[in-house]
């Protein structure tokens, strides 16, 4: 009997240990996931009421979000225009955007504090966020896209600092709770951040990726001349050009956006080489960013010639986010090196800087030599090609237009570009859904944004 009692003792100890393990799992390993649950909103809102939530400011100190007293209402002076970046905050429906991403810091609980489970704030006043965004530029981007569906991103290729990130249609965060039913079911999807999560066929803007693959992996192909009879028939697909371009070198092929030439190049490279180049700019990977991003996709599996040729000109199964195209462009502009994009320049506590973002290298898209060669060809696009409308007086612009066929109606209009071409300070990527040709519908917007943005950064 004594031995049996001792066995029972051991059994009990084991079960108690099991309980301790389950507790550890919940409080340590599952904590981040569980605290983000929508069923936890009331608790999180309660935590918020214990401090004055920090404000959010643009790069010039303009107020973007502010709270006056403990648990007081959140005021957004430019709510609709900033919603794609700042998101919203509501005790019932939760939080999104930077309000969600920096929830702990804004409410006075730095991450190490929150990880200990200490819910009461470290300071009565939460940290302020100072963004890299310019309010005036953001407003202009939203105004240019108003009435359409689309997105625009402006960033500094030398650091990754985002100057504007627009997505239309948007929403008014302070009225979101009241209008939740209609907004969340709106077919135009105002809650979708098209700049970071919209997946589109990139159309001809993707030709810079095909070009990068040629120059990096098969440089001998760049010396050849190509012949465009106006169309190219492949098993399962026929590639069309707007006209027969005749004899072309690589630079003129990009300038006139010759589909036949780039399809031929794509076929010579093969899907794997193209996918490899795209992945160097984070296709098929999550882009590290402060807002949720969708993964741009370049499927790996072997495909027929028809599909490979389509992918080389940005059609077929290739899908990208506007942010992704902006980063590809930034890579070319910055001598091949892509910097990780960021929105928060610094955090401040009671007027003192508590954290400052250091620009971080994200990926090397191409070598500096290849980047320079692509830049030259993109300057040609503006000088003599499809991107003529982007030219600015006294400043050289490098760019590429795109007109992406899609199953939802008229083609999406794209433009990617940067300026000044010799020493780029600003990159822009614009998409306007179902607006027709990139040169006509996206390029004028991009030109205005480039012009304004160049005044913002020196």
């Amino acid at each position: 009997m004594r031995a049996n009692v001792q066995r029972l003792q051991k059994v009990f100890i084991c079960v108690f240990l099991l309980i301790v393990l389950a507790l550890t799992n919940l409080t340590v390993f599952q904590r981040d996931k569980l605290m983000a649950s929508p069923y936890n909103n009331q608790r999180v809102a309660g935590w918020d009421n214990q401090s004055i939530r920090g404000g959010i400011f643009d790069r010039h100190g303009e107020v973007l979000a502010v709270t006056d007293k403990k648990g007081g209402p959140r005021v957004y002076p430019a709510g609709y225009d900033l919603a794609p970046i700042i998101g919203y905050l509501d005790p019932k429906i939760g939080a999104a955007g930077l309000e969600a991403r920096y929830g702990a810091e804004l409410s006075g609980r730095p991450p190490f504090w929150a990880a200990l489970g200490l819910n009461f704030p470290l300071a009565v006043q939460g940290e302020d966020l100072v963004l890299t965004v310019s309010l005036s530029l953001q407003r202009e981007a939203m105004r240019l896209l108003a009435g359409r569906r689309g997105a625009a991103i402006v960033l500094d290729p030398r650091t990754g600092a985002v100057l504007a990130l627009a997505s239309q249609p948007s929403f008014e965060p302070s009225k979101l709770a009241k209008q939740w039913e209609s907004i969340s079911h709106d077919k135009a999807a105002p809650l979708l951040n098209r700049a970071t999560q919209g997946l589109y066929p990139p159309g001809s803007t993707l030709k810079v990726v095909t070009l990068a693959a040629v120059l990096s992996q098969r440089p001998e192909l760049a010396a050849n001349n190509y012949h465009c009879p106006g169309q190219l028939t492949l098993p399962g697909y026929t590639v069309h050009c707007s006209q027969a371009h005749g004899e072309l070198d690589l630079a003129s092929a990009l300038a006139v956006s010759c589909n036949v030439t780039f399809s031929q190049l794509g076929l010579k490279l093969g899907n794997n080489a193209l996918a490899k180049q795209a992945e160097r700019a984070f296709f098929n990977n999550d882009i590290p960013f402060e807002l949720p991003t969708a993964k741009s996709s370049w499927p790996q599996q072997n495909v027929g010639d028809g599909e490979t040729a389509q992918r080389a000109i940005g059609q077929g199964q290739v899908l990208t986010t506007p942010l992704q195209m902006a980063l590809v462009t930034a890579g070319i502009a910055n001598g091949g090196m892509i910097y990780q994009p960021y929105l928060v320049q610094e955090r401040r506590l009671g007027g003192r800087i508590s954290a400052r973002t250091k620009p971080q290298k994200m990926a090397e898209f191409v070598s500096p030599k290849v980047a320079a060669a692509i830049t030259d060809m993109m300057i040609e696009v503006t000088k003599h090609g499809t991107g003529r409308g982007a030219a600015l007086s006294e400043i050289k612009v490098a760019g590429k237009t795109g007109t992406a066929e899609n199953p939802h109606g008229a083609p999406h209009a794209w433009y990617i570009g940067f300026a000044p071409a010799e020493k780029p300070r600003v990159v822009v990527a614009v998409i306007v859904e179902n607006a027709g040709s990139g040169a006509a519908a996206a390029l004028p917007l991009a030109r205005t944004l480039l012009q304004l943005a160049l005044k913002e950064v020196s």
Partner: protein
Amino acid sequence: MKASRQTERALLGGAIAIGWLAFGLSWLAAPVWEPQAFFYPAAISLALYLVHLSLRAMESGADELLLPLLTVPLFLGVATLYRLDRASAFWQVIWILSGLGPLLLLQMVTDIRAWRDHWLLLLLLALGCLASTLLFGIEVYGAKSWLKLGPMRFQPSEPAKILLALALAGYLSRRKELLLVRFWQLGPIKLPHPAYFGPLALAVALTLLLMVVQRDLGTGLLLFGLFVCELFVAAPRLDYLLLGFLALGAGGMVSYRLFNHVQTRINIWLHPWDQAAGQGYQVVQALLAISAGGLLGAGLGQGSPQHIPAITTDLTFVAWCEETGLAGSIALIVVYMLLSQRGLKAALASNDDFLTLVGVGLTSLFTLQSLVILGGALRLIPLTGVTLPLFNYGGSSLVSTLFSFGLILRLSAEERSS
């Protein structure tokens, strides 16, 4: 003064200090200071110190760890309740005081061994208690396991559990030899021997009855566990135990098919997130609260346990987790584990089979009840309405748990005879 009582005094002082600390933190977090707040910790400290003095006066040889260990969950439980609901805390103090009386009286019983021969009476009393709710019971939270006595509510299943533990110990200790007989030959048919078969059948029947008729899944599970533990200690016949588990499993399956409330409980357990705003609300909010505690917790009085239904009666432990974090909850669990270990040690204090089985039965009840509610809150098993003994609000449970520990304390003072 015996050396063991000296140790007891030192440890009791430590436990009481922890309790005052918990109260102090709750006071700091409270919006207004109430002078009457001193009543709670002062009353508990005084009562426990008096118990210690009485044990000293009796020159008791009881285990010196038990009283300080008991103090920790009792004190912290009242501190947590005080922060959640003043009225519950007040009544809890009254229950503690009324429970400590019987605990002391039990130390004066000279010969517990004599109870062995009255096992049938104890069994009938236990069954009577359980049956009384069927006849006169009222329904609370969907379980028909309460009796109304004037203004007071009372749960007869609490004394029934103790009575059953004693009855089974008496029965098994008298039939030790029979337990070792392998089969009961009935003509050509071999059956498990009735000495074993009887209690097992009773256990399965009572469990299912409680689950189905009284809708009290938790108590049903506890009684089955009690029988299994005592049988295991009396004679570990794995084949019979297996048979018991199979019978319970089959009965459980049938009641799952037939009865809605069993199905509901199991479904909530399996898919709480699918119905997090509905029936799974309590389970989901409990998980979130525990998780919110992190490593060190929000601090006493700083959590938001008001989101959890039945927090004072079923899930006080969850409030403790949120406010003291992993560190605080592990500390409390360790105290429960130590209480369970000292209880089984007390069972072995004498070499009398009956006393050993009584100790095993009572300790198993306490341990299993703790594990059932902890496992339920952590979603290891379905959540049932049993209380975390000594910690949760609940008069019947508290008084009967203190009665059990009175017996265990008395057993620990037994001396081995040759």
